[in-house]
């Protein structure tokens, strides 16, 4: 199973998908407000440019396959979404 993050947008986001944990169940996609998670047959990917860093997908993941990577944390962007309706 190949799971990767689309890099075409060159936007680095602080969310990592752990391929070994991901079950391709689609729970994260169900809650993603900007619809930036893509699931095809064997691939889950996040379109970085559309991501608003709301972290709802992290909570929704039953297995914790989505992880916050603090190395890429961008607190400025986070502030703009902290009032997001959740």
């Amino acid at each position, binding site marked *: 199973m190949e799971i990767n993050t689309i890099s075409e947008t060159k936007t680095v986001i602080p969310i990592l998908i752990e391929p070994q944990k991901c*079950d391709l169940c689609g*729970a*994260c996609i*169900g*809650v993603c407000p900007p619809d930036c998670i893509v699931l095809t047959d064997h691939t889950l990917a996040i379109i970085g440019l559309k991501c608003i860093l709301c972290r709802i997908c992290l909570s929704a993941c*039953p297995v914790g396959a989505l992880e916050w990577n603090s190395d890429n944390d961008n607190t400025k962007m986070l502030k703009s979404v902290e009032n997001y309706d*959740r």
Partner: protein
Amino acid sequence: MIDDKYDIVVVGGGPAGTMAGAAAAKAGAKTLILERDAVFGIPVRCAEGVAVFHLKRFFDIDEKYVAARLEGAVLHAPDGSEVPVASEDFGMILERTLFDRWLAENAARAGAALLTKSDVDGLINPNGRVEGVYFTRLNKRYKVKADVVIAADGVESRVARWAGIPTHLKPVDLESTYQYLVVGIDDDHNNIHIYLGNEIAPGGYVWVFPKGKGIANVGIGVLTKYCDGGTAFRKLNEFIANRYGKVSIIGEAAGGVPVARPLKNPVKDGFMITGDAARHCNPVSGGGIAAALIGGNAAGEVAAAAVAKGDITESALKVYLKRIDKDIVKYHRRTYRLKEGVIKLTDDMLNKTAHNVLKLPPEKRTIVNIFLRGLASQPKLAVDIIKAFI
């Protein structure tokens, strides 16, 4: 093998999709069902419980897809109190791999065309009007036109979003779930068991659905609102370690279960949504098979009738909403209010409720029905009724 144009294209080969496809084909529409995976029914992301009467509405039950028949259910309060409840809302545990395959066979026999390994990755929608789908099968991309596209693509429901209908769930409306198929438990296997409690499963519950003696689906649903990543997996492991100790696990699956109100408007010109994609899941139980059968069947019939009449506008397709009004729209809206109350219950309140319900004679212990009757006669917030109950 694959034509350029169909009357109806159904995206997704779960129960909603295959029911819709079968109903449409039976009504004479040229129908294609597209399934992303290689086999209908695999993988299973389901606890597999369904009430017998829901199936009987549509067909005679074939024992080959029945894993176990049940007598009832036992609710377990956080303090360990056990409340046996009447069985009308429960009935049997399916073998979904076989059930879904049977539904696919049923659609094929009705005359629908079916394709596996067909990943729908776009809609033909010039000017916002849905006119067909794009899909990839074995690295080849296909463009197929359709008078009506029926989205039955499950909880992630991307097709609906491509059509411009927002289906995003709030964290309070998605259960994050994990389930094991467990061998070697010596629980009572004639009843389903539901374990409630904010420590056990915040905003949800743990289920033990027996599939025979010593084998059961043991799963958990936790409300995304109360989760951080991996909560479902962690809490389920805790439950199994505490209750059973060492067991053998022969299968596992993660999933998302919508516990939302049904979509207000699941149709537009040439487009319909059904099943989990339309949020047709019982907001308290998370059960979605019955609603998928009812909604899928209605969507297929309405779409076929609209195509036959040559009117596939939104207003013509809205007959679908009337068809599912009682069984899904009104019922799930009522149940949603109940959910809003239930997820706020503290462990103490859950215990008290259990103790009070235990005072009732067994035949009146249909908790859901008692709550619902209260809601129907007094349209206040469910939490008030539950408080009144305590």
